[in-house]
């Protein structure tokens, strides 16, 4: 392995950015491909697939055998709001492979008692997100119903190109939210990325059912990365 390739790869992994190490198994030469880099032909198609699935493996292309080692950051879910839905969502998402962090400055809601085994921040999103910035491998669900808490996080999620951004509330609530986000400087294209009303339409009614709808929509967004939003590079 090229020492420079190893250094580059580790730097990308530390920064929670996706990268693929492409090794020619014939001559041992290797290089790093970052998400969004253009690679032509069959090899390029295989690389795009590996970025989407996260699966590593050998590939035959251009009469040669390459090994693609896909290094994708661990996807995670940040939930704004320590509410009833979040109590169901946190364990479900963790089981599905999406570790959860919950942020809610209202200390009556954000108690370890209500959220055992979850990373919980009884703080304003501004404070948490300045320490642990959002990124393209983070999903954000805003479920407090309170603009004071949700709006900043939603804008930050759009700016960080989070792979999923969802906001709880009716169409009417969302229309008002759109006005506020525009005032905060969000573009119409950014706002169109928000899933609102939140969750896949499965007719969810109870908090736990809504949690299932949110989780399903998160998984769908993660697995279709690069298919709907072309050029959306984290």
């Amino acid at each position, binding site marked *: *392995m*090229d*020492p420079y390739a*190893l*250094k580059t*790869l*580790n730097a990308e*992994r*530390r920064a*929670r950015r996706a990268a693929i190490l492409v*090794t020619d*198994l014939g001559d*041992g030469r290797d290089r790093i491909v970052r998400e969004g880099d253009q690679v032509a032909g069959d090899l390029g198609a295989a690389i795009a697939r590996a970025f989407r699935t996260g*699966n*590593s*493996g*050998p590939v035959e292309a251009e009469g040669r055998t390459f*090994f693609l*080692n*896909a290094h994708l*950051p*661990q996807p*995670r879910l940040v939930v704004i709001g320590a509410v009833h839905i979040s109590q169901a969502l946190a364990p479900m998402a963790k089981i599905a492979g999406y*570790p959860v*962090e919950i942020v809610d400055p209202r200390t009556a809601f*954000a*108690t*370890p008692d209500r*959220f*055992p*085994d979850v*990373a*919980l*921040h*009884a*703080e304003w999103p501004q404070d948490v997100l300045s320490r642990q910035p959002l990124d393209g491998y983070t999903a954000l669900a805003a479920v407090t119903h309170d603009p004071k808490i949700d709006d900043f996080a939603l804008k930050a999620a759009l700016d960080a190109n989070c792979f999923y951004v969802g906001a709880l509330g009716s169409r009417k609530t969302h229309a008002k939210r759109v006005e506020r986000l525009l005032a905060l400087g969000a573009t119409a294209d950014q706002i169109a990325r928000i899933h609102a009303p939140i969750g896949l339409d499965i007719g969810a009614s109870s908090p736990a059912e809504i949690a299932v709808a949110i989780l399903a929509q998160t998984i769908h967004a993660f697995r279709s990365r690069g298919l709907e939003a072309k050029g959306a590079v984290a």
Partner: protein
Amino acid sequence: MFLREKQTLREAIMENSIYLDEARDPLIIAEGWMKDGKDVAIATVVETWGSAPRPVGSHLVIDADGNFHGSVSGGCVEGAVVTEAIDVIGSGKARMLEFGVADETAWQVGLSCGGRIKVYVERLG
């Protein structure tokens, strides 16, 4: 930040595993060894068949003294990979190793689980 009693921040982070575990990550260790001026080989699982214990892409990193970190199997074939890796460090020529019950003639060690794996061993630099 609220955490469960007696749970440290580090444990909470490890549980979530959204950050690299620098002390155990084979590729981070390999880079550190390289900076210390050590000769290093990197072994990578490139293909698996059947019930292989570690997924494709897993790494074992080895230095010239036979120190190693990571894994390419559940401990079944690491010894053989380390031996090969020391040769690779000496020659600079990468090798493809194959392990599995189907391959008893080529290799003394096999995967007792019945799987088969291909491991690519290369020198760093």
